[in-house]
């Protein structure tokens, strides 16, 4: 998994690429730390470059959602396709993450 944070003054976008799996646990937590250190009101996770997400990866999105709620920014997820889109749909996390 790789990611790039674009911060457009209060509105951030994180562009992911590669696979988001169990082994990315540490870098994902680092990412959340990076976001919370920047002063953002909303953040979009762009998943259009992600080929695969496993259940642990989905768990990390839930952690992100919780962190967004506690630190007062809004999380949106966009661009999921293929396996990632069907995983989000199967687990209804697509509704949860945008709700």
């Amino acid at each position: 998994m790789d990611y790039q944070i674009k911060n457009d003054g209060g509105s951030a976008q994180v562009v992911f690429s590669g696979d988001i799996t169990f082994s990315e646990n540490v870098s994902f937590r680092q990412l959340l730390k990076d976001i919370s250190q920047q002063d953002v009101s909303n953040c979009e996770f762009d998943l259009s470059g992600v080929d695969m997400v496993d259940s642990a990866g989905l768990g990390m999105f839930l952690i992100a959602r919780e962190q967004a709620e506690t630190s007062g920014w809004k999380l949106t997820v966009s661009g999921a396709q293929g396996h990632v889109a069907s995983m989000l749909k199967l687990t209804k996390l697509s509704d949860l993450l945008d709700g």
Partner: protein
Amino acid sequence: MTSRIASNEAENKELMHSVFGARILVVDDMALMRQMIGMCLSRGGYTDVLFANDGDEALKMVESEAPDILVLDLNMPRVSGYEVCRTLRGDPRHEDLPILVQSASETPEERVEVFAVGATDFVSKPINQPELLARVRMHLENRLLINSLSNFRERMQSELVMARDMQQSLLPEPAMIGEVEQKSRMKVESFYRASFELGGDLWGCWPLPGDRLGLFVLDIAGHGVSAALNTFRVHATMARFTRARVDPARFLTELNAVLAPSFPLGQFATMFYAVVNHKTGHMVYSGAGAPKPMVVSKRGVRLLDSTGVPVGIIKKPDYFNIEDKLEPDESLFCYSDVLIEAPLPDGSMLGEDGFIGWVEEEAQKPDRKRLVSRLLHRFFETQPTSLPDDLTAVAIHPNRKGAS
């Protein structure tokens, strides 16, 4: 933080105590050298120094005195230092014993040979006392640290094996499967393997009143110890809901109500639970985000809709029942996501569509009751020995002519 530093200090103290209490065997044919090295070591704080006059005596003392390190002269009558090294390294019991060689004639060729016969390190004569002490201490520390690490590893390993056996006991016992098979006249075919010693997958089946059986599969996010501990929690919780077992949506709802408050953030279980009437084929099921189970026959594969919020995330996930019917020639097949997500040799993943293709091909072959085993055989041909995630695959096959 403070206690961690304190415990590090305590560990260091203990290590130093062990280093200076280590047994050192000094091997030299010259009495003067033995005396000098012995004095150097005892001034350096070592309390247990033994001496051998030649290689032969050294080998005997290694057996009788079990020293922690050898300080070994090379050129000795009868058995030379080289010979001592070769003999010790040829014996698996002594292959890790540190051997510090000391020699006066120091050519590059000799150094090569010293290491080739198995010496750990080299000090040149005349002995430089601080250097000798530094090297002895370094090799003793290494040896003690390696020993304590491998002891720790061994202990962890045996604990994990014990835990794995305990976890294995969460899966349905052969007697339970036998009872289900006998009552339902169906064949239960299953496979389970954890990616690590411990896993986060679980499946189960049980007979139910009214010619029915219940079958569930679940996968706790992640794997390893934390996921495994949660399988125990889920299993224990499930055992309490015997009355809800006839109603899949209610079963998932009750399970979720208990687990949602206790599961840590980011952890959850994807799940599927079905109740099948084995006389009529009538099936009721409810999904919580498990991979879509397949209904398999020679006519092809139908996917069941297992869409649903995984267990353990939100308070009210609104699980609902879906009704279906297993025809007399249809098998129900459930599996965990590693089958479609594990990377293939070319780096791609099989995906749901690719896996459906496999299942359709295998379903055409005779002996459906070995569907799971044939699919896994095919899957393992694409995989290295270790899997990236836990694997569960369960099928119930009808015992009717159309499926055999």
